[in-house]
């Protein structure tokens, strides 16, 4: 919008404004603008006219105050600098080539604080305008004894009002920000630098969350688990491949989780967790054998310990991000929930139904991100993959009889969860 407007205005007024260099600055509401001239300016503009026209061009600026920087012209050092600038403005120079070298002039520029200093110079029919301001007017630290902008306007605007229109659209069109009061400036001067804030020694938390767990990790070939997911339990115990629990159980479930952990100096830490998921057993409902069955499902409880590495990225005063990666081990066991319909007695097959092992253990890893608010509250999101199985602790002897496959001996699923956390910070 700003660009279109300035192009429109420049096209209408037939002024060519060339930016040699421009470093963006903060536009203040009710700005204080000082105007100085190099000694080759023949028709100095009137600051009052400039201000009135600027306020008309950019109404959002509020009440700009403009005055001549008389002290700049009277002081011999800054006067010499103005004289020097008049000789050295050129479309080929960089800002460093126009820097004030005298320490007294540099100090004067530092003292501008949130005021703007516009220095004007004339060369034949071209008007050169330079913008200076103190450190407070820039978001990034910079050398303030260099001009922040150098532009040339051709042909030279006839009066202060026209100049204000051209310069207002080009230099003051950003939405203005309220200036700090003297009291706020004092407070800002002694405020601690957040970059030097100490990292807490320990960050403890407890959290409660929910999520979703399923056998199939997204974006993986369906053929990996198709046979297991499509399998059914026949006669209460028979499946095609008993190695994975997903041959018996419907693999998708909502999960509920409780976690607690800590991070040491914002870098590494340990977390313990417990998760509950619930799975329906996959039976063929058309099989008359299952008519006696009212419900049959397994709740899986999983407990584990993970180690994580994390980093902190501060977004602003209140919010920070902690992306992390974790790796750990887990123990899980199934709790069966089964019931017969009233008026039915249990069949032989019911009595000899399949049984899971008493517990399984596996590995878990994943990545997550924690959005922390005010150090104490956080929203945690994580994704991961976990395995549950039975590993052989001893090498089986070659004489041993071939043992049947362990039911659920290799069960892998993935999960995604969100959790609310409460943190305690120990410095």
């Amino acid at each position: 919008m700003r660009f279109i407007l300035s192009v429109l205005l420049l096209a209408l007024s037939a002024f060519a404004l060339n930016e040699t260099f421009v470093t963006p600055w903060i536009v203040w509401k009710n700005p204080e603008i000082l105007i100085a001239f190099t000694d080759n300016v023949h028709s100095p503009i009137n600051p009052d006219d400039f201000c009135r026209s600027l306020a008309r061009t950019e109404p959002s600026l509020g009440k700009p105050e403009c005055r001549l920087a008389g002290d700049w012209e009277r002081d011999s050092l800054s006067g010499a600098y103005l004289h020097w600038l008049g000789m050295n403005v050129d479309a080929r120079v960089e800002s460093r080539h126009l820097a004030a070298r005298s320490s007294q002039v540099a100090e004067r520029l530092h003292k501008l604080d949130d005021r703007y200093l516009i220095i004007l110079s004339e060369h034949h029919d071209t008007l050169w305008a330079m913008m200076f301001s103190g450190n407070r007017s820039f978001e990034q630290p910079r050398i303030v004894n260099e001009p922040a902008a150098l532009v040339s306007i051709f042909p030279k605007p006839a009066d202060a009002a026209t100049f204000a229109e051209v310069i207002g659209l080009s230099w003051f069109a950003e939405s203005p920000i309220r200036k700090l009061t003297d009291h706020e400036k004092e407070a800002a001067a002694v405020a601690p630098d957040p970059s030097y804030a100490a990292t807490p020694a320990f960050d403890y938390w407890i959290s409660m969350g929910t999520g979703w767990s399923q056998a199939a990790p997204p974006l993986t070939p369906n053929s990996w688990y198709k046979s297991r997911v499509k399998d059914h339990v026949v006669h209460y115990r028979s499946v095609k491949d008993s190695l994975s629990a997903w041959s018996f159980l419907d693999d998708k479930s909502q999960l509920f989780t409780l976690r607690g952990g800590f991070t040491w100096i914002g870098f590494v830490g340990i977390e313990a967790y417990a998760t509950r998921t619930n799975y329906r057993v996959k039976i063929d409902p058309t099989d008359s054998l299952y008519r006696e069955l009212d419900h049959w499902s397994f709740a899986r409880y999983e407990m584990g310990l993970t180690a994580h590495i994390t980093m902190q990225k501060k977004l602003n005063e209140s919010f920070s991000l902690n992306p992390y990666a974790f790796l750990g081990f887990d123990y899980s066991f199934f709790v069966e929930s089964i019931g017969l319909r009233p008026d039915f007695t249990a069949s032989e097959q019911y009595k000899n139904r399949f049984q899971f092992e008493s517990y399984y253990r596996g590995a878990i890893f994943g990545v997550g991100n924690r959005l922390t608010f005010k150090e104490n509250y956080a929203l945690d999101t994580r994704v991961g993959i976990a395995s549950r199985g039975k590993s052989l602790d001893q090498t089986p002897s070659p004489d041993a009889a071939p043992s049947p496959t362990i039911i659920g001996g290799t069960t892998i699923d993935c999960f995604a969860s969100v959790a609310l956390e409460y943190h305690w910070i120990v410095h």
Partner: protein
Amino acid sequence: MGKVYLVSMNRWIVFLGLTFCFMGCSTAHWSDRHPLFPVGSALAETTMPDLGERWILVRGAWFAEQLKLSPAQVYDTLGEDVREIFAESVIQNLPTVRAIASTTIDSFAPTEAQKLDDHIFIKGRFPAQGQTLLTNGLAVSQLLLIHELTIGPDLSRENIYDYDKANQDTEGNHHKVKKLTAIATWTLWDNHKGHFLVSGISEVVVPYQGETGPELRKIIHDLIPALTAKIHCGIIGACP
């Protein structure tokens, strides 16, 4: 088979060559040119303050031993010679340049740093902003300022002016002297507009063969041609 091998070897040679070229070509800039420096012009109407006391001798005791001077006298005695050889070289190589008293620079602004590259800085005194140096009431168009002349055995400008490679001081390394070095930091200054035209660091190195006196004379004498070559390549815009 042999041909294929040769072709692949050629590729390797080209690749390695390019790599070394990039490594070599991306070295530090030892001079800086102002964008307004008039391309194609030669040194014109230039004034040069004498060297004066702006020279430094590294390992003075070694020089004293070689030149059979007493360590207390080496700076005074050698100083006379250095100034004389330098002035002679200016007259020989830059006949149009007019010498003025070295004390002229006392009227300049206090010492400032001038940046040549991201980590290469020189220090010197320049006329203050808005100040034009007048000699006999007239302003010459250019000034050639020698900020510092450093003479010593086994020196290199990297170790003195490159802040990345500083603290590798060769003084105190009492190994056998292999070469003699003279390093000058200088600026060609636009006296009318009051800004630098070219600033640089030039060095002259000769292998040390035991003839301390003549070799010292040679490195100081050769500094001016080295420096002028740099100014001219600044004019052309392509410094090696």
